[in-house]
């Protein structure tokens, strides 16, 4: 809901939402520097979006730089778009930082259960495993890259050769890990009919939900 709202907000509501999320991030102990480092590639993408909007939106040219084909309206529109996208991703970060994978899984299972034909339990488990596996995949990719660098792969200029050198051992390792993981799950009696983590909503959660819904209503009115 918050993300959808952010995608449709004007600067004033965006400022309010940014302020609230910044306070929330501070209370959670998230460092701005750490967040910006994590999002460095996304920031690059935002830079490209801003530039594209600035150059392609027709409007008044900047008086100080008449030779540059950038419009004032384009820069404003670009800034708002970038702000919205950043806020959406920032909300996502806050969500991940405050919600355990088990709770997300429980919510997915609860949400999908009424739909006939959808294996809610399996989808929930897959989601949990994906979340669990992502850091491992990055670790393995890093280890494979390090091993390649140690043997001077950077001196080879052909990107296809480098990609092949990387992909074959990386994928092999990844599949082996997946096999071992499956075996370990089997050894611990894995089954889809199991005790699920309970989907809990404490009074505080309901208060926050009411607050957020109220705030969103107000923002839409603004």
């Amino acid at each position, binding site marked *: 809901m918050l993300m959808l709202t952010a995608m449709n907000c004007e600067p004033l509501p965006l400022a309010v939402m940014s302020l609230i999320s910044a306070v929330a991030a501070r209370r959670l102990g998230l460092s701005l520097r750490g967040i910006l480092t994590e999002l460095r590639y996304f920031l690059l993408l935002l830079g490209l979006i801003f530039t594209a909007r600035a150059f392609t939106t027709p409007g008044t040219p900047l008086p100080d730089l008449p030779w540059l084909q950038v419009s004032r309206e384009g820069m404003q529109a670009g800034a708002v778009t970038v702000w919205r996208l950043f806020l959406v991703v920032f909300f996502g970060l806050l969500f991940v930082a405050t919600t355990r*994978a*088990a709770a997300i899984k429980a919510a997915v299972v609860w949400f999908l259960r009424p739909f006939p034909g959808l294996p809610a339990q399996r989808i929930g488990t897959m989601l949990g495993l994906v979340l*669990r596996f992502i850091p491992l995949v990055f670790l393995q990719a890093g280890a494979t890259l390090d091993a390649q660098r140690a043997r001077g792969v950077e001196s080879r200029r052909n990107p296809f050769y480098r990609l092949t050198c990387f992909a074959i051992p990386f994928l092999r390792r990844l599949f082996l890990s997946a096999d071992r993981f499956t075996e*370990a*799950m089997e050894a*611990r*009696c894995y*089954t889809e009919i*199991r*005790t699920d983590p309970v989907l809990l909503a404490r009074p505080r959660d309901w208060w926050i939900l009411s607050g957020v819904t109220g705030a969103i209503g107000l923002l839409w009115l603004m």
Partner: protein
Amino acid sequence: MPIIDIDTLCFRYPDGTLGLDRISLGIEKGTLVVIIGPNGSGKTTLLKHLNGLLRPQSGTVRIDGVTVASDLRRARRLVGMIFQDADSQIVGETVAADVAFGPENLSLPAAEVGARVEAALDTVGLTTLADQTPQALSGGEKRRLSIAGVLAMHPQIVAFDEPFAGLDYPGTRQVLREMLRLQQAGHTLVVATHDLEKIIYHADRLILMNDGRVVKDGPPAGIVGEVESFGVRAPCVSRLGLEAESWLS
């Protein structure tokens, strides 16, 4: 009656490699049995038959009188398996969630799951790390977490595959201490390793494997002198003609 009863067990991998060749042995309850042998001798293949991760082409494996093939779930509950690579055994996002994985698979009530998690973490001394992410643990702690994950399923037998691989001295001692504690609590331990040095002092029985067969089986003192002819390094103490000593002393 032995708690593990293996009768003429044969297994061949899909590529034709011989895994196990007519293995027959019985393991008594409460003993610490060490299976040694060089890489590819069939140690891990044998362990994987104890809880049905691999199925025999011929022969039978009985756990407490019941064949593994006839009740896989029972076998997996009774035989806890600690794998060599602790990282690929960890399923949960926190230490406590990982320990809960097994009991949840047994469809136990949530309160019972919680009680088992608490007890298992307490046994291996990881209670204070319950909310930590497992990736932040040391090698020894990860191995202890694997043990806790298995203990929470209340097994009678715990099978360890190369339990000391990649561990430093303190990590090795932590794991060894847990193993002995399990034995004292009445569990049967089956330990597959090629690193005899760290466990020989505590072993009740030594089984030497080579090319998928059991080539020697008996008390450690009677076999340890012959292991080098089968590609396993004998412990330093026995090479020097000294008495074996515990890594915990």
